[in-house]
């Protein structure tokens, strides 16, 4: 009996943990992802402010490839063809200026605030 109960408890714990983890990470994802669209050779929104730990996802909506590069080289995307995406998680607060290395008149900034 004792053995059975212990088993039941451990089983419940095993079952509980993934559920809790799943709901936590799902809410974390929704809050910490920010999309930036590349439309008509423009980053939209062009300047964003996000909390530390946010993942920014750039989506290229143009018929032309673009490449997202941080001015201070903290990040550099591969070439993004139409509908391709690049994501970068901002772990450190600060202001990150970036541009398209193919069309350098396209510029944007990500400001990362400490939580």
């Amino acid at each position, binding site marked *: 009996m004792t053995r059975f109960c212990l088993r039941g408890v451990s089983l419940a714990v095993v079952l509980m943990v993934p559920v809790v983890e799943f709901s936590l990470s799902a809410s974390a994802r929704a809050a910490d992802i920010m999309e930036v669209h590349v439309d008509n050779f423009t980053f939209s929104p062009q300047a964003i402010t996000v909390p530390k730990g946010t993942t920014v996802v750039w989506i290229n909506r143009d018929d032309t490839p673009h490449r997202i590069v941080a001015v201070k080289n903290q990040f550099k995307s591969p070439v993004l063809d139409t509908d391709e995406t690049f994501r970068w998680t901002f772990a450190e607060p600060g202001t990150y200026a970036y541009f398209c290395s*193919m069309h350098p008149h396209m510029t944007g900034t990500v400001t990362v605030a400490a939580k």
Partner: protein
Amino acid sequence: MGKDSLGDIASSPLDRRSLLKCMAWAGTGVLWSVVGGVPRASGLIGSAEAAAATAGGLYFVQISDSHIGFAKEANPDSAGTLQAAIGKINALPVQPEFVIHTGDVSHLSKPAEFDLAQQLLGELTAGPIHFIPGEHDVLDDTPGALFRDRFARGSLGDGWYSFDQGGVHFVALVNVTNLQAGGLGNLGATQLAWLKDDLQGRGASTPIVVLAHMPLWTISAEWGWGTSDAEQALGHLRRFGSVTVLNGHIHQVMQKVEGNISFHTAMSTAFPQPTPGMAPSPGPMKVPADQLRRLLGVASVDIRPGEPMARRVEMPLASS
């Protein structure tokens, strides 16, 4: 425009032979000359290459922006339109001495795109081809290495070089690497120093042809159509009596004259781009399928002794 060029023909003292040559070309294009920055039609094409062959001039053809690999709505068959352009050059009654390609050979710098471009361009009967890269050709990890290995062996730096042919000095520049945030095309200090050295000691009467992918004059800062440090390059070129700058990048014909320097952009063989201010962005312009080939094409350039201005003929893949 057709009316103007016919008017010019009618008022020009053409002999029967050249008139027939012109007539054979009627409808395929118009010879442009540029006076005081204003382009005007000065004759039907056909006269240019015929005259170049007899006047001891240097006659070559410019291909630009073939974007091999591009297959979106604006042109699902960029290989087919490059082939059509090559067919057009091969069919010229007088073959050019060589061909230049002013960049964006490929769309995404992929080896397969370069391979296909190489295969298609191998069908040109005129040769050789002198290449410079566009920003679409330098997307590999070592920017431009794949391009240079195929198309610019023996070049310096990011792919610049010079050569002489027919008494004309050609300078092939690269303004698509190390682009700076918020800027335009970029030549860079190393290349500018090389250009200065390359031109030093050359007589001012030597005709100069400059090749660069992005325009060396600012057509639209908003769309990035210019070169940030072009002025420094032009400073080394102003003392020459005839300078012809040939650019690509903007997929349409624009021309400007500044002193002895004439600037020309070229049609693409892949897709047209809009005129600045006429669209929200410079992205590929979608036109009805039956109009596409009127907006794609190549150009011939004819440089004659004693004439400061090159004669340039636009050759669209299809006439209207």
